[in-house]
């Protein structure tokens, strides 16, 4: 069984933010029906590929449907005749909070890279004369250490069936761009038919990255039809 953590989308919020950024939507006024459709088609494609989708995506799809439905109803008013809170409010707040952290983590990435090559001294001779105070001796440090030890047995007991994936996402990205540029356009399901699941997964992940970086373009005649992959030409 596969449990896919898409490298590009850390979760449903990330995917939603991607749609919002791509289509230059106003985060404070999200067009719910449009984004619900986008989200659902993403979920459908994942299902089409027979990939097990993290439950959170399904949950988000239904949350979006719920908000959409609520927006269609006449807006309830409170006793002063003022409109009660927009059903999108909570979602927007969550998206903003997520975005706030996401942007901070990008800054942390720079800090990490800057400090990657500072190495500390690792070996200290035991100086018997000095009085030693250990600084990492709390109950929780102990608990964490015990957990790590027992986890290791846990992993050793598990049988690991590791499916070897002969190609990496990086390699497949190069390959895809080459093929698409050569043939003009390809159909995703054609391209991946009769291929092992691992190949399909890697291809799909490569495709997602390429779409994100605008190196390839995809289109679909209908939600359930094959995805057509073509070179990225500015069609707008």
């Amino acid at each position, binding site marked *: 069984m596969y449990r896919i953590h898409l490298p590009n989308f850390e979760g449903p919020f990330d995917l939603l933010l991607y749609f919002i950024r791509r289509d230059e*939507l106003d985060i404070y006024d999200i067009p719910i029906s449009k984004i619900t459709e986008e989200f659902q088609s993403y979920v459908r494609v994942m299902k089409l590929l027979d990939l097990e989708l*993290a439950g959170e995506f399904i949950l988000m799809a239904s949350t979006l449907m719920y908000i959409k439905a609520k927006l269609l109803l006449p807006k309830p008013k409170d006793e002063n005749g003022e409109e009660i809170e*927009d059903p999108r409010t909570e979602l927007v707040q*969550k998206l903003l909070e997520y975005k706030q952290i996401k942007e901070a*983590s990008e800054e942390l990435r720079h800090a990490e890279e800057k400090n990657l090559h*500072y190495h500390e001294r690792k070996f200290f001779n035991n100086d018997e004369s000095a009085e030693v105070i250990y600084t990492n*001796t709390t109950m929780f440090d102990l608990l964490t250490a015990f*957990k790590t030890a027992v986890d290791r047995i846990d992993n050793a007991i598990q049988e690991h069936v590791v499916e070897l994936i002969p190609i990496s996402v990086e390699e497949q990205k190069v390959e895809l761009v080459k093929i698409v540029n050569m043939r003009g356009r390809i159909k995703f399901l054609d391209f991946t038919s009769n291929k092992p699941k691992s190949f399909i997964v890697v291809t799909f992940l490569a495709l997602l990255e390429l779409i994100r970086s605008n190196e390839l373009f995809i289109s679909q005649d209908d939600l359930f039809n094959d995805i057509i992959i073509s070179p990225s030409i500015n069609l707008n």
Partner: protein
Amino acid sequence: MELKDLPYFFSLPKQEQKIALEALLFTMEEPLDINRLMKILASNESNSADEQDIIEYELLDKIGFNREYVKNLINELNNENSDNDRPFRIIESGGGYSLVTSRKYGKIVGKINKNIVRRKLSNANLETIAIIAYRQPISRPGIESIRGVNSKEIINGLIDKGFVRIIGKSDAPGNPYLYGTTTDFLKAFGLNSLDDLPKLKELKELGFSESEESGFTLRIEMEDESKQIDEKNVPEA
């Protein structure tokens, strides 16, 4: 008023002070914050550094041996070590000063011995540690409500890496553990304390488009949070 004795360290020639400082930090297993460093340097052979009251800081300050003086020694030492292609530098990170390899030789050593190279965190890891860093103490449900996805494995992975630890228990139903960041996290990101975390953007700055013609006003309840984090100083063991 006069100093009975100049503390041993300050009685050394300045050049030797610098080198002694480097050697001192070499023997330290934990970063040394400026207060403890001053205490050690100002202690005399006769008194232990713990007898702080004996140390005549004010008198030392008067003759110019204060924090600025010591910080200046560190700067000069780093410059000399850089000019002479020496492999070590003193940096301020993880709560104080420590001696580490220079970036140049750190990179070289990493190429010779790949085992010491720190791998960069994955995006999921980075995102999660950012949430923990800014919102600590925070429980797993708290983390998951921001990320929108199950984060158990990621949190446990960060614990294994030594960047996150349990710092308590929540009063919320089920008493979930509360997580916080460690000194190793600060060190890996070159932060001296949590106050050094990059400031979170104001929510207003986060909007994607400037057009505010929408008919809805949003009640934003989060604006205080960034302030909260600045003020809060989560204790580190």
